[in-house]
């Protein structure tokens, strides 16, 4: 693990590494707790866990500044935690309670925060991609230098609307970073069974959009690539594509029969590429932290996650009248 090369590894400060560790661990523990609550019947319906992909959002958030926007698909819990949304509000939305970000009406896939510039949580594969271009258009129109991180998966990369969006984004030079979270599987269909494109980011070339592939299991590589893309967009050079090669350890959703890949494949990723273990090793071997330091962090995170779960259990169910709020036609 420690042998993995990270760009600018020597320049990474202790604080920065600890920050990544905390943030990624928060997502992982939160998702594990969500999985437990699902198993207990406290979360129902759809629940897509982010476990394994933590380095992507944590690395990119480290490259963002206040005002930057993010929009993503239904595997959205990690994005919300990484941009600073309250774990309590996220968990309570999963349990469908009044204290949830959408007051129980949206559920796991449909949450928003204007304060954190998080534009959802979208349940339809690929449908958020044109919206991301629209957000970037608005920033450009208003003359600020914000960028929009528009996340989608390898499955969504085969949606026609992605390419309509590419064309317009480049045509109008929009400050949008298309982040393809290539976790190798569109539900049960592997990338190689859904496309013959050797890589997904290269498709942008047809529209004149630059981009690159990134080791999405390495938070430092993600951050470095994110900074480059952000600088490009802020300079008015137009859109940029980052294809994050990553991996989800859990099923597509909670009802995944997991017959499309082997246990060994998943275990190998966990053993060799785990993003949290990577940072943990850097911390320990660089002498930045001791086992006890990390245990203390683990304890803090556990408390935050437990608190969110308690809140999500205790928050009341929304009143029936809530169904008829925000209705206009």
């Amino acid at each position: 693990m420690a042998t993995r090369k990270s760009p600018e590894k020597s320049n990474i400060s202790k604080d920065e590494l600890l920050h990544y560790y905390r943030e990624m661990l928060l997502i992982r523990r939160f998702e594990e707790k969500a999985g437990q609550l699902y198993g207990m019947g406290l979360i129902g319906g759809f629940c897509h866990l982010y476990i394994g992909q933590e380095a992507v959002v944590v690395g990119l958030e480290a490259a963002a500044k206040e005002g930057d926007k993010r929009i993503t698909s239904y595997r959205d819990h990690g994005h919300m935690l990484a941009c600073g949304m309250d774990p309590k509000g996220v968990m309570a939305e999963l349990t469908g309670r009044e204290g949830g970000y959408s007051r129980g009406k949206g559920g796991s896939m449909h949450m928003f925060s204007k304060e954190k510039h998080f534009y959802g949580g979208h349940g339809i594969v690929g449908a958020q991609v044109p919206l991301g271009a629209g957000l970037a258009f608005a920033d450009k129109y208003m003359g600020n230098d914000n960028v929009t991180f528009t996340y989608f998966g390898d499955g969504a990369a085969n949606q026609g609307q992605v390419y309509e969006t590419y064309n317009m984004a480049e045509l109008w030079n929009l400050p949008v970073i298309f982040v393809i979270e290539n976790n190798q599987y569109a539900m049960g269909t592997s990338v190689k069974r859904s496309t013959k494109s050797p890589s997904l980011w290269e498709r942008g070339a047809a529209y004149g959009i630059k981009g690159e592939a990134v080791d999405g299991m390495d938070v430092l590589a993600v951050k470095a690539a994110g900074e480059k893309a952000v600088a490009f967009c802020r300079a008015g050079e137009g859109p940029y594509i980052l294809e994050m090669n990553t991996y989800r350890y859990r099923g597509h959703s909670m009802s995944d029969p997991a017959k499309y890949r082997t246990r060994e494949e998943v275990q190998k990723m966990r053993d060799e590429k785990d993003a949290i273990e990577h940072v943990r090793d850097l911390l320990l071997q660089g002498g930045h932290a001791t086992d006890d330091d990390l245990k203390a962090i683990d304890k803090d995170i556990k408390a935050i996650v437990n608190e969110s779960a308690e809140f999500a259990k205790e928050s009341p169910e929304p009143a029936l009248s809530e169904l008829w709020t925000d209705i206009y036609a």
Partner: protein
Amino acid sequence: MTMIEAIRDALDVALAQDPEVTVFGQDVGFFGGVFRCTAGLQKKHGETRCFDTPISELGIVGAAIGMASYGLKPVVEIQFADYMYPAYDQIVSEAARLRFRSAGEFTCPMVIRMPTGGGIFGAQTHSQSPEALFTHVAGLKTVVPSNPHDAKGLLLAAIADPDPVIFLEPKRIYNGPFDGHHNRPVTAWRSHPLGEVPEGPYTLPLGQAVIRREGAALTVLAYGTMVHVALAAVQEGGIDAEVIDLRTLLPLDLETITTSVRKTRRCVVLHEATLTSGFGAELAALVQAECFWHLEAPVERVTGWDTPYPHTNEWDYFPGPARVAAACHRVLEVK
């Protein structure tokens, strides 16, 4: 067998008996479908007959229309009816119009299967019932089976049909005849008479409703999951209702409907979809036009509410047996 197995059986029969039939969609081949409706078909019939597509609804349907106009009989699966919207232009502007605009030179013998409806806590993007979006389009046939026996016969009829058929599979009753009592265990199809599915090929004609329960006091029109909700509601409410399972919305078996309503003189219409401009509006209009002088009460509709399908409060939104029974009683009380 379950409705999933019945649908798989129908696809298996169709693939075996007609080399022009192809079955494809997202996760349909290798994975066997998100609800397992196509499990094992690729292995049995090969990768040219049953295959995966990218997540490209517009592309899937568009390619199927091309195949169909050339004489193949594609049966495509859209993973959830809620994912259909990117393909809607192809369905409306191409599939539904091909026969008319080519003056009969071309037809479009294809089936688009989609799991529909709620009751699985799927929130707004995995629970919708968009049937009215299809019945409103001239040139589409729309089928909604309510049980395994019908699902197989209707699907084989749909595949044999020379024109495009939208085949909506109520996902809540895939494994059992869910009657809206979400707190009770659902009986399995294997202990239900309509879970008995004949082997081999058979078809049920499109456009033929069936009376699921005879009654004299009022007529309840339902399809899909709501057939079971209706049966439970009138049973528990002690209501002498005639429950009609429409089975196909277009073509619609108006005769069975009007014969029943002229007899009972009262009518309640059910569906899970939202009220406004729902298919129930069409049914209510037809009933009043055809049975006006027989009616003794206004036609009532019991439907999902005019809100997006909610994540929580699903069982308030869902038109369950209590709401259905209450509507029946209201209609019966009109003097």
